[in-house]
């Protein structure tokens, strides 16, 4: 009996915890809804169609703005990945190196050489030039 009451008590406590979380969630949802409603209720200025087109100084835009964009910072991303991955593997490798010795060293050398290709590519793309 005592065991079962204990179980019941735990279940009630668990439900109460969920209930509190649910209440917080419901209150947050209600607050968001009320704020959204209040926002539209007090502004009451509908956005006209003209205001939804980009203003480019008085000339109508000729093309849709939905285009593929050249991410020029990709070289910097490449450099980050090259050096970051190197560091991520070097910590566990340091432990293995103490046990395995030369084999681990050669393996790490191969890994670093592959990563270096990325660095050389970034170098060719002038990623190492400042500004």
């Amino acid at each position: 009996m005592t065991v079962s009451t204990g179980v019941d008590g735990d279940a009630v406590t668990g439900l109460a915890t969920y209930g509190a979380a649910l209440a917080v969630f419901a209150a947050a949802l209600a607050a968001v809804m009320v704020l959204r409603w209040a926002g539209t209720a007090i502004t009451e200025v509908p956005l006209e169609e003209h205001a939804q087109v980009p203003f480019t100084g008085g000339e109508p835009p000729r093309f849709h703005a939905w285009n593929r964009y050249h991410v020029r910072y990709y070289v910097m991303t490449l450099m980050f990945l090259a050096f970051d991955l190197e560091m991520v593997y070097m910590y566990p490798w340091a432990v293995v190196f103490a046990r395995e010795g030369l084999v681990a060293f050669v393996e790490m050398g191969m890994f670093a050489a592959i990563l270096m290709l990325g660095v050389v590519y970034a170098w060719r793309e002038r990623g190492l030039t400042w500004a």
Partner: protein
Amino acid sequence: MGLSSLLGRLATDAPVAVTVVAGADAGDVAPDLCLRPEVSLVTGPRQAEVLLLAGTCTDDLLRAALAAHDAIPPPRIVLAWRAAPGDVVSAAFPGVERCEDEDPVPTLRRIAAELRTGQRPSSPLRGAPTARSAWRGVGPFGQGGRGRRGGEPYGRPLARRETARDGLLIDALEVPVGPLQTGVPDGFTGTITFHGDLVARLEVGRNPFLSPHLTGCQPAFLRSLEHPVAVEELELERARALLRAVAWTLRVHGLVSLGERVLRLAAGLRPQDQDQVVRLRRFVTRWAVSGGQLRRVGVIDPALLAGRSLGPLARAAGLTEDLRAEDPAYLALGFELANEAANNDAAGRLRQRLMETEQALQLAQRAGPEAVRAPGPVEGPRGVIRAGSAPADRLEPLLPQLVVGLGWQDVAGLLASLDLDRREAAWVAATTSPASGARR
């Protein structure tokens, strides 16, 4: 009742958000409004409530003004200040409020207060061609159903593809730059094609200020082409124009309040203010700007500038071109060429302009009211002004090769450092028509 009257009073006390479309003969209205606390000169129509049409409004300006008007969120209102009666403005904006006073600010405040308290209706849409069409296409994103390339979302075609300079196939985004674009000189028009964030091409459009009949007061340098003008007046005008260019550069680089201080200095400039200009030069060149933002921005090959008589621009590049060095009126005042020549970038040009401001104030002080310059081609604040040839006319052909490969922020920095003034060019074209050129 109490609450609504309180809200009404608060609303009428708030600064009036104004966006300005200024013709060639109302060029100083924007820098002047910048200094008024009752007015907040906003950067675009989206933040504005009043559209101020100042001076002669040409057809090109009017088209842009209509687009700006429709982009202002309601309630909005239009004020035509010193626009010729019965001109294109009345036809485009029926029942527009007009004002011929020296100072447009009281009228601006009055109509804005009436607009805010509901005593005056919002100006209705004028149907500018920027209205978007319906989203056409059958795919899930309106793209026409065959790949991403088909279809015309909202009636606008998708960008063309071009090969960028690094061999990548990329969308070329053509951006029209209208006369009211924020961040570029007033009245600069054209089409910039971007490959990603870099400029691939620039086509410069026509000058929207060009008009055969400008009505306002003719600027001193233009008058000096045909009439004798006091050296003091010319040099003060030069110093003011140079300081305004400096203020605009500071504003473009985000130093808005410093730019406002420079505008304030320019507005009440006297020959005795040399020490203030010296202090400003030291402050700007040592601390605020040249330490970073402007260095190595907009470097120009001096060979491109040679022979174009582009004033401070050429002198900052180390060229020794100045008409004043041959002018007897200036030689009598002991004129010496001021030459920066340290580095030919935006920072160097800023220093050169501040040095020349200082020099202009010295010359104005030495000249006094009696020294007068004989009529003829004159060294203006942006280069030599001749009959039929303004500095902007000689600078514009260079622009396409200067901006290619730059990012947008560097284009804005470069254009600010060039001090392109299309209003001056419009004045030169209007004062020296072919007939008066032949008379010469």
